[in-house]
């Protein structure tokens, strides 16, 4: 039986809400910094793809002065929740700085929760005690806040990056969080069209764990399989959304299992047997082993995702491309979006525009040394 836990209580209508969406993202591979205003402009074009029930962004490279600290963004339902959560934080991390996340008052974004951010490092004695890496420690901490501290929800936990999301149209969400004040080398954005009205801020995209952020359009038919697979590795899917599963899969495959990005993508959107059977022996064996071992991580059903992480962005479609995804390049910029128009809005004359093939990732990485 699903443990619905506090999310069901906090917002009782949240139950794996199917939704359609619009996505956009870009990276400057030289590491040049771009204002968050640009991703808002791109998202505004896709207003039609949302219905005002969820929008959000992730920016990379936005906290250079705290680059070595985990930037934990938390939403609280109440002051009591905040106190309980801060107590838990103080027990586990050294806080360098804590502050309210700056925001605009806006007519179009109503009823915000309490939004704070904490720049911190795990307590050394805690790390020694548990014998885990700092990243794993933070993952556990995030999981434990999100499952057991009532009315608290961590929505961003990476370094030198941050997620900003809310109930509303993407462009309004961006303005609410004053994204124009931030500059990053990569941005991803999302607007959401859920088919009922969850109206819970945590349910908006991107979903994040450590520096992995995922914006996603689609519905995962293999959700139950993927969720139970991830649980074997200690992930707790608390949000009952497909996208959360995507974020954890990237974290597991690339960070924990150290699979190359292309290979992780070939696990999640596996090539068909009919194509592999005719491939060379070595290649066939590789993909056969991948599917035998990582069958639980195969993501089935329609999806297009853009994933942000510290070194780059990835765009990926499901194995039969049931959701739109377009990519474009201009000089050191790589753009990925649900719609070409959203790219042309911020890059009118790209050098190259293409439709990535089903299951084939588009990867934009910071250049070595950046």
């Amino acid at each position: 039986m699903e443990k619905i836990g506090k999310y069901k209580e906090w917002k009782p209508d949240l139950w794996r809400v199917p939704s359609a969406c619009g996505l956009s993202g870009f990276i400057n591979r030289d590491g040049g910094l771009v204002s968050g205003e640009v991703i808002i402009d791109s998202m505004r074009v896709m207003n039609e793809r949302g219905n005002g029930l969820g929008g959000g962004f992730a920016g990379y490279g936005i906290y250079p002065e705290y680059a070595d600290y985990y930037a934990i963004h938390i939403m609280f339902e109440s002051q009591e929740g905040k106190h309980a959560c801060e107590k838990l934080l103080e027990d586990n991390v050294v806080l360098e700085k804590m502050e309210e996340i700056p925001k605009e008052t806006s007519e179009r974004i109503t009823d915000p929760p309490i939004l704070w951010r904490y720049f911190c490092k795990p307590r050394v004695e805690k790390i020694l005690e548990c014998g885990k890496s700092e990243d794993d420690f933070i993952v556990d901490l995030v999981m434990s806040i999100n499952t057991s501290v009532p009315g608290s929800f961590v929505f961003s936990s990476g370094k030198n990056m941050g997620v900003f999301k809310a109930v509303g149209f993407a462009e309004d969400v961006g303005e609410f969080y004053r994204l124009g004040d931030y500059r990053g080398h990569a941005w991803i954005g999302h607007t959401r069209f859920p088919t009922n009205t969850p109206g819970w801020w945590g349910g908006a995209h991107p979903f994040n764990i450590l520096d992995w952020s995922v914006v996603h359009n689609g519905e995962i038919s293999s959700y139950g399989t993927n969720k139970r697979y991830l649980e074997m590795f200690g992930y707790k899917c608390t949000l009952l959304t497909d996208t959360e599963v995507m974020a954890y899969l990237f974290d597991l495959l690339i960070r924990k299992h150290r699979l190359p990005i292309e290979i992780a993508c070939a696990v999640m959107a596996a090539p068909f047997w009919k194509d592999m059977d005719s491939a060379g022996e070595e290649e066939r064996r590789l993909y056969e082993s991948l599917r035998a071992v990582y069958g639980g991580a195969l993501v089935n059903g329609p999806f297009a995702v853009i994933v942000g992480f510290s070194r780059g962005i990835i765009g990926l479609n499901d194995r039969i491309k049931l959701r739109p995804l377009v990519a474009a390049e201009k000089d050191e910029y790589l753009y990925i979006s649900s719609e070409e128009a959203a790219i042309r809005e911020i890059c009118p004359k790209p050098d190259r525009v293409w439709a990535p093939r089903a299951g084939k990732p588009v990867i934009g990485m910071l250049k070595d040394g950046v």
Partner: protein
Amino acid sequence: MPDRFLPSEFIVNVDHQRCRRCKRCILNCGFGVFDFQNMTTADSSKCVACHRCVVFCPEEAITITRNPLAFREHASWDVGLRKAIWKQAQSPGMILTGMGNDKPWLNIFDHLLIDACQVTNPSIDPLREPMELRTYLGRKPARLEIEYDSQGKPVLRGAVENNIMINVPIIFSGMSYGSISLNAQRAIAIAAERLGTLMNTGEGGLHEELYPYANHIIVQCASGRFGVHSKYLNAGVAVEIKIGQGAKPGIGGHLPGEKIGREVSGTRMIPQGTDALSPAPHHDIYSIEDLRQLIYALKEATGYKPVSVKIATVHNVAAIASGIARAGADMIYLDGFRGGTGASPAIVRDHVGIPIEIAIAVVDEQLRSEGIRNMVSIIAAGGIRSSADVVKAIALGADAVAIGTAALVAMGCRLCQKCYTGNCSWGIATQRPELTSRLDPDWGAERLVNLVNSWSLEVKEVLGALGINAIESLRGNRDRLRSLGLDPATNEVLGVRPAGM
């Protein structure tokens, strides 16, 4: 007192106007119902309703009806109970029976409903898009290591060893030569080869003639060790240690001497005409560490072929399965309490064990909670009756299913449950040459291939409706099942939400 204290179960009626006295019914009936004295006569008391005569009578002259004899109703004294007492009062002993549990226990599969896509998530048309059922059985590492070589090509460090690839997640369950005929085994072997799946020898050894099908055979090593020798162990693609069987958990087996003719005796390596007695436990396995030794002994003997351990699903199945996984098994074969048998005491067949649906759910969950699910493949058997059951078993968490009864039904079996008599009119559960010769292995194989191919089509159709194009995305995907009419505790155990939630 009359000899026939018990009334006949069925009444056989020959329409003498239609009968042309060809005597085919006499030849065909394995139970000696028919005789000829000026005209065809029938002794209804011997009829088991196996329908062989009905199918072969050229004139459709034979009808078989249930004996309409009325018994005084009694809600707790079901007629079956009264008959059992009459039988045992007449000749002492356990009541023997064949096939699987025939009692009307709750069938959980029939209370599970499958999901489908609508609007927000497109279904996939299996006629236009690939639908992948390929399955790998065996132990898998929790992760792979992949590096790039100097040319930037991904290279696998270490590999997945000793997995068996099957084209469909349906294999044939263990039915021994002895309990079934060699022709029945031949049919299954040919079908397994043509389908790209597996058969299982059961505990009766492997007849010389079946060695050519070795790439599609799991050889069994059971408590009687019948027919076990090094060539045999190395013949198949995997070895199975049979601890128990769903139809008779906790007890041994008994193949009567009449069934041990020359060929069976040669294959089983026991003298002709002697009873083949399988002890209840393996006498070298009295605890889990003993099992571990046998698993590794078999691995050593076979150059590390995968080892499967077959158990009957009993109350504590989850913990037992976890022990088996940790003892080094590569597959766990779960045989539910509806599993078939050549012979079993009715009390055990009908009252011991738990349903396969529950067993799959708790074993899968237990192995996952311990983080060792990848160490074994789960094969679910004992109650798989249709492609819908296949889908539900896999969604609950099985890697593949095994079918026994369904395969026999495809070859003519009428579930008359008289397998233990050795008189099977369909040439399946018998060693009588005049009966076995009537089962043409090629004919049987074709029917098995048709059946499994039909089920595969149906599984693909349902996967398409679920918006899934690979069987691994169904595996353990309990999210796509809902229950109807099950109690909350059972839902909890199954990990399935009730319809509407």
